[in-house]
């Protein structure tokens, strides 16, 4: 093979780890002149597509979509899991969910987590990433440590924090130790505090991902832009605001998408730390589904709640992609020069 990978860096739009030409490969393949051989070429192309994507589609359909479809099917029955599926109830389960104040409360809690995760994690992660976007000793070690909570399983993280947040546990002792003893609360037992506690723990777990993402995005902002701007007399803050942050835009927006979906599907940590309590004060749609549906042998109802959760996530995802990410895929901001 004559070409070598290093030739990639020569071209203008040529960063292998960087820019994606917006949604379409740069330069459409040239159309072949209509010839008798074209049909064979087309068929061969279809064969290639089938060969490459086929296994993935097959495995995915069989092990993901079929079970999901079946689970959605259960949602129109009342079913205790043991008897055969005979009790068809139509949309009753859905009506029941939407008229249950506990479910609506769970929906509200999910909305709280969606919004507050963004509000809390975004500025903190950005600030940390900006201020730490410097050559410093131990940067690699730092990046690794910051990412550790993300690597831990949610269950383990939940169990750990459960221990730490007990009355007179590590959290209380630390606060007292730094003289902030007045802030001590019943972190998991107080209904007005528990949501904030869970939010804090979730942020602890996922902020490392945000920091790493933003740090990596910042690496790609060219030094020359900063130098040019400060030669022109801009202060550090102005440089960040006018140049760095806008260029970080696509990074931030993708992270926000992942955060929103994650907040909607939240289950493991809440289940382990509070079980949805006390008195349903920290329920999410997923804990509600498991508790009311599966743990109470009401599989039809649980499946209906799962479908509602799916639809909510889908609406959020579609809405987000259409109105927020569209700017990126149309190349509005991806297209600035970037050289390594």
């Amino acid at each position: 093979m004559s070409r070598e990978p290093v030739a990639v860096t020569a071209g203008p739009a040529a960063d292998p780890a960087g820019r994606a030409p917006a949604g379409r490969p740069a330069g459409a393949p040239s159309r072949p002149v209509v010839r008798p051989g074209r049909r064979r070429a087309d068929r061969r192309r279809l064969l290639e597509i089938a060969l490459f994507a086929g296994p993935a589609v097959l495995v995915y359909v069989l092990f993901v979509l079929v079970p999901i479809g079946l689970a959605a099917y259960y949602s129109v029955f009342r079913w205790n899991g043991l008897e055969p599926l005979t009790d068809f109830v139509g949309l009753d389960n859905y009506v029941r969910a939407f008229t249950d104040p506990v479910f609506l409360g769970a929906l509200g809690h999910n909305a709280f987590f969606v919004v507050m995760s963004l509000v809390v994690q975004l500025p903190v992660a950005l600030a940390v990433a900006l201020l730490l976007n410097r050559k410093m000793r131990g940067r690699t070690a730092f990046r690794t440590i910051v990412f550790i909570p993300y690597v831990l399983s949610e269950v383990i993280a939940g169990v750990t924090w459960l221990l730490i947040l007990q009355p007179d546990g590590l959290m209380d002792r630390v606060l007292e130790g730094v003289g902030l003893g007045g802030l001590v609360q019943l972190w998991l037992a107080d209904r007005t505090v528990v949501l904030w506690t869970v939010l804090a723990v979730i942020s602890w777990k996922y902020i490392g991902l945000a920091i790493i993402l933003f740090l990596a995005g910042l690496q790609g902002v060219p030094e020359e832009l900063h130098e040019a701007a400060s030669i022109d007399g801009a202060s550090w803050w102005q440089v960040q605001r006018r140049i760095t942050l806008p260029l970080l835009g696509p990074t931030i927006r993708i992270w926000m998408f992942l955060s929103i979906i994650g907040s909607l599907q939240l289950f493991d940590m809440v289940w382990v730390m509070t079980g949805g309590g006390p008195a349903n004060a920290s329920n999410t749609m997923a804990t509600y589904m498991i508790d009311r549906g599966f743990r109470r042998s009401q599989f039809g109802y649980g499946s209906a709640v799962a479908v509602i959760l799916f639809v909510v996530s889908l609406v959020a995802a579609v809405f987000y992609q259409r109105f927020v990410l569209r700017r990126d895929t149309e190349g509005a901001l991806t297209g600035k020069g970037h050289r390594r």
Partner: protein
Amino acid sequence: MGTMRRAGALVALVASTALVTAACSGGGGGGGPSGDGNVTITWWHNGTGEPLLGLWQDVADEFEADHPGVTVEVSAVQNEELQKTKIPAAMQAGNPPDLFQQWGGGELADQVAAGKVMDITDQVADELDLIGGSAAGWQVEGRTYGLPFSLGVEGFWYSKAMFAQAGITTPPTTMDELNDAVQKLKDAGLVPIVVGAKDGWPAAHYWYNFALRSCSTDTMKQAGVDFTFDDPCFVEAGDRLQEFLDTSPFQEGFLGTSAQQGATSSAGLLANGKAAMELMGHWNPGVMGGLTEDGQGLGDDLGWFPFPAVDGGAGDPDAALGGGDGFSCSAQAPPECVELLKYIASVDVQKRFAESGAGLPVTQGAETSVTDPNMKTLLDFRNNAAYVQLWLDVAYGNTIGGALNEAVANMFAGQGTAQDIVDAMTTAAADR
């Protein structure tokens, strides 16, 4: 082109690896006879730790030795997951284990209604003679679908030293006396009662006991059969519980304390001298022992008294609330499964069970192996009780039980009334 073959080869490799791993695998749930006349029994139990893990393995080995041609495949699964996830999934798939953990009550009734459990009435007549009334929780409409191996009752575990310190000379026998004791403990600066309300059921047990003391035995029995709770005694139970809650007898932050999960649980608090009393089942001393440095828990300092009588309640003061464990055979299991079940319920195995301290044996003749004085008190109370009611969330099945536990937890959090509890149960009953 070489690459095409290579791409295909990669896909084939992944696929064949998958198939090979699939081929070299064990089976699913049920065993049954294989072609050469050998019988395999799959056995799922919840004894993930010692001493039960070793005990059940010994039992399996001995059974295999006595029955050539029979293999017993034992699988120990964590209790909650076994009951709520693994067994239901296996049953729904039509792939149940042969011998499996059975907690009785409404859950068993549902399994029987779906035809998943073997009716063993005719084969265990001898064993039933020895087990007596304790087997009631494992029977549905007079037929037997499983055998218990442990049945305990609930009461207040307390620290004798703390009682002495507060000037309480005898354990309370009525609610008024209990309220007095709570007050005296508070005056002495001690935490009267500890409860693991985060887990839901420890709080719910208070309501169960009040219901048992407020409702006549017949009403309780009937409720476990037809799942209607119209009798006003059920609301009374909630009212009495509310009165009790109003005396603020619990530790700070009780809504966030777990019952047994490790160091900061209610059992841990009692074991380490941070509270005076806990309403809990027969397993508490064992749990507490594991949570102290010396492994002894409160040791000789530990005492037990039954749930006090309630003034004006229609319930029998000698009735006990309890629960236990047993095993059932699935409807598809081979006949050797019943033999294994009978062996587990035999006097010999029950004696070893009692010695291990893992629970209270049910087969007569085995209780001589119980040595701990507190356990003996419990055992006597259970055997002499006019009526032993299974935990209500087990007796009523997990649809009603889950709703009940949640409603009581709401009351503990100041969010529900006595009527709400009964309403929640009635609504859930309609959903069964």
